[in-house]
């Protein structure tokens, strides 16, 4: 017979490990990062005018129109990223022939989306109230909190990704002029880095 302490430790570790959602696809993180980079490139173009060397291209966007374009772009990026994550994670779980919609998966989604959805609504409130310069910070902060929260229920890299987003969010909060850059770094570059790390570590 094993030592009782050992046996209890064994039970605890199995309970913890089995409640993690392991089908998360690394590649979907990379793609989400690329969508975000393209999106923030477009936003950069609308906000800062982009290339004004060509007379034919001289479009004068009203502030409100630019805002609408940016919001629509952000929404498209979000839908593409979520869709890709869903499809690729489902494919990964099919490949390893494990259950996709597992209790662990449900816990993971709840942990991630409660902060993220409230953060999204909060960001809309900020736009509505005219604090547009704080939106980059609030989306980064809430997303970071969601990831740290969800990190308990999935691959441990997610937690570090969340801490990265949180730091960028705080920088963006104190320096709103760097908001878009922080946003591109967080949602774009960090996603690509962590996505490829996870892809090489787990998906092959």
């Amino acid at each position, binding site marked *: *017979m094993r030592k009782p302490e050992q046996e*209890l430790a*064994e039970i605890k570790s199995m309970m913890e490990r*089995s409640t993690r959602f392991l089908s998360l696809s690394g590649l979907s993180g990379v793609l989400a990062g690329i969508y975000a980079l393209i999106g923030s490139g477009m936003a950069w173009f609308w906000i800062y005018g982009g290339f004004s060397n060509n007379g034919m291209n001289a479009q004068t966007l009203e502030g409100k129109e630019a805002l609408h374009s940016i919001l629509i772009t952000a929404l498209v990026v979000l839908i593409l990223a979520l869709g890709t994550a869903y499809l690729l994670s489902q494919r990964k779980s*099919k490949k390893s022939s*494990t*259950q996709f919609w*597992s209790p662990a998966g449900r816990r993971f989604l709840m942990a991630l989306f409660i902060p993220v959805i409230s953060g999204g609504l909060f960001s809309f409130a900020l736009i509505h109230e005219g604090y547009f310069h704080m939106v980059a910070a609030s989306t980064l902060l809430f997303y970071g909190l969601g990831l740290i929260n969800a990190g308990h229920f999935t691959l441990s890299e997610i937690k570090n990704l969340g801490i990265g987003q949180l730091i960028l969010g705080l920088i963006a909060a104190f320096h709103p002029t760097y908001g878009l850059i922080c946003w591109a770094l967080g949602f774009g570059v960090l996603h690509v880095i962590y996505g490829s790390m996870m892809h090489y570590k787990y998906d092959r």
Partner: protein
Amino acid sequence: MKGTYDKAFENIVRLRIMSILMVNEQFDFNSFKEILEVTDGNLASHLRNLENQAYIKVEKTFVGRKPLTQYSATDAGKKAFQSHLDFLENLIKENKS
């Protein structure tokens, strides 16, 4: 002394299977294999053993063309595991005093 040492959980693989099923409503064969890192045959025999004692129940379905075998703990299984846990905890307490 409270709780009973259950022979069914003497084997480490069976103990692990039961620990997983205590915190997951359902768990499938391939996920067990992945997390426990045991061979198909070994896993199947331990699962059958627990099934024969009516500690777990089996449900077979298909996802597309692939078979998906889901396991879940029965009430008797949960009770037996809880009693096994009580035994271990009491043992630790007694050793301390």
